[in-house]
């Protein structure tokens, strides 16, 4: 019955240490839907890699407060800072993404001071850089690209580990940047920005009735000021950026590079595994290198042979016999709940691995307390690497 001790008995196991020790791997991207423990997993992988001798930088998106403090993420200057308390010859730097600041720096790096100031003061830019759907993903990708380039140019790091934004869907990380990129670079924005010019040319003149209609609609919907802001914005960025879409495409290609690995993270819950499943399919479709699945918060027991129903029935017998077996009855009820959870998780995990037969899986047991410091991260790292 020993196979029953693992929650995903038929799955292949993911060798985390082999992944982290592989010098040919320079980028590890941690993806998954919100609330599955992405940030913790990213930090635990980064720390383990560092303590196995790699020079690591980890980009986190939105860490829990105490975890952020333990990583020294108290200075919010959008730059990696060394993490104190890392053992061994490697090193760990950590940073937290500041979306607006990354965008501002991107503008400042690509425009002269005067023009950069004009852009940054533009109301449309300000909305774009702080609250647009997809901006966080775009900037996470941008920052990842920067870190990777710097790790090569300055020889600071040999491994970049990234956490991804807490999107509704894990796919947003892949899709949002290009969506935003093609919009910013696209026909629609250009037409909006230059309606007068568009009217003067052949094809454009032919279509200008259509343009007039929807710029009219937008004007009516949003008010004329919005279009003016957009026109000024596009005019000032037009010649500078070498194209937002091109930029997004370049980072996307970086994710297909042979030195990148994706780790998909899920909890053994229906929704989280469904999202993970979509994501795995997508990685395959786009030839992106998948390392495997990390399954967090897996329920454990050392006696899976004691089934939930048997434990509950025994507890009931003890409770009816009123001669002071209440402690044992309670312990059996605790086990019954745990075994039931484990059964449900196993069914869900089995369904996942029966669809994705070749995926390698590492599991992290459900922990009694939250991970808030380096020791906690080490414990997660040990569990990740403890493959059977």
């Amino acid at each position, binding site marked *: 019955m020993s196979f029953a001790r693992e929650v995903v008995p038929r799955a292949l196991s993911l060798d985390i240490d082999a992944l982290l020790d592989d010098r040919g791997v320079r980028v590890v991207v941690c993806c998954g839907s919100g609330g599955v423990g992405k940030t913790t997993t990213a930090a635990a992988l980064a720390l383990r890699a560092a303590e196995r001798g790699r020079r690591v930088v980890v980009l986190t998106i939105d860490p829990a407060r105490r975890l952020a403090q333990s990583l020294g993420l108290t200075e919010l200057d959008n730059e990696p800072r060394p993490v104190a308390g890392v053992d061994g010859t490697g090193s760990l730097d950590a940073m937290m993404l500041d979306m607006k600041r990354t965008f501002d720096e991107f503008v400042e790096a690509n425009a002269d001071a005067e023009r950069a100031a004009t852009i940054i003061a533009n109301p449309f830019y300000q909305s774009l850089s702080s609250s647009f759907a997809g901006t966080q993903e775009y900037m996470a990708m941008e920052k990842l690209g920067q870190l990777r380039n710097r790790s090569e140019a300055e020889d600071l790091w040999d491994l970049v580990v990234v956490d991804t934004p807490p999107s509704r869907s894990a796919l947003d990380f892949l899709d949002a940047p290009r969506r935003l990129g093609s919009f910013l670079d696209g026909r629609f924005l250009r037409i909006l920005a230059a309606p007068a010019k568009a009217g003067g040319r052949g094809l454009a003149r032919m279509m200008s009735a259509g343009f007039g209609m929807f710029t009219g609609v937008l004007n009516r919907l949003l008010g004329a*000021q919005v279009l003016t802001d957009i026109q000024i914005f596009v005019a000032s960025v037009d010649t500078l950026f070498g194209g937002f879409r091109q930029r997004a495409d370049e980072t996307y290609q970086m994710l297909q590079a042979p030195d990148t690995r994706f780790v998909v993270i899920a909890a053994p819950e229906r929704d989280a595994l469904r999202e993970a499943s979509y994501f795995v399919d997508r990685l395959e479709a786009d030839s992106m290198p998948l390392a495997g699945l990390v399954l967090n918060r897996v329920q454990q027991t*050392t006696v899976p042979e004691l089934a939930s129903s048997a434990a509950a029935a025994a507890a009931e017998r003890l409770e009816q016999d009123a001669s002071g077996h209440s402690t044992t009855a309670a312990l059996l009820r605790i086990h019954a709940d745990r075994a039931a959870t484990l059964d449900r998780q196993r069914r869900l995990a089995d369904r996942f691995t029966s669809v994705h037969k070749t995926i390698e899986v590492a599991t992290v047991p459900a922990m009694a307390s939250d991970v808030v410091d380096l020791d906690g991260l080490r414990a997660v790292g040990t569990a990740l690497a403890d493959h059977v």
Partner: protein
Amino acid sequence: MAAAKDDDVRDVDWDGVRLHVVSGKGGTGKTTVAAALALALATGGKKVLVVEVEGRQGLAQIFDVPPLPYADRKVAVAPGGGEVYALAIDPEEALLEYLEMFYNLRVAGSALRKMGAIDFATTIAPGVRDVLLTGKAKEAVRRKGKDGKHVYDAVVMDAPPTGRIARFLNVNSEVAGLARTGPIRSQADAVMEVIGSRLTAVHLVTLLEEMPVQETADGVAELQAAKLPVGGVVVNQMRRPLLSAADQTKARKGHLDTEALAHDLAAAGLVKGGALVGSHGAVTVDDVVRALVVEGAEHAERVALEQRERDNLEGLHRPTYELPFLPDGVDLSSLYELAELLHRQGMA
């Protein structure tokens, strides 16, 4: 927690509220709670609409029905003859509906879509998407039938997570920087008349864990700063504290009486001849005892942690409702149980 109340003289905590917004950190079960709350509100013959706004079809899964279209669909019957309808609000459809309603422009929809204008308005233009989503919910709240009465007694929204909820609902300030005039602006103002008023309550779902509780506290503060009406806190997936207080202490310190345990296991017929019945001698009574002791200690640890987080939640001074952890997961029948619990606790 509000005390259980007699059905005849029920004084529910959210009398007068017609829009219940349910938010929570990812993974806390806000969709489940939204669905259960809709059932609870419909109990006793009411008609309730539950809407989702993030395109995940979570409601269809919970109510075990095919994916929801952009139209109200009856998904469940509540105890006492109530009805629950569900709707997945799609921002594109909402925009086209809006254009049609105000400008008779629906025909222009496909042309606009081709030019990227619909994409622009629903995914990229700041705030517009949120105005469309909240606007549709507001419309359902205000909708009246031929008899002049409200079509729905209440609307429940499965809303974006806590980290984004204040910005999502505060459409007024979201479009303020951009749309200073025009219909989107007026629509935002109309939405705020409902969402910023006593007609609305924003409930937050949490687990008794550090991060969700912290996010709940942050969410309450942000909602209050934005002058949005904070509702109750729903504590989801609570463990039953199975051990007595004295046994919890013993369990955590490793002081449980293992001999008595072994004796009881035999008395209960679980072990025979020093081994677990049915294990063919592979699992000894010591294995079972050791496992139960470890699991008991972890349970006690977890309960203590939950108690600390519960104290933190009390500091928020919000009406609090508790829902149990369901080891077998949530299905349609357990949804009715959760609804019943919310009903009994006076949330609906």
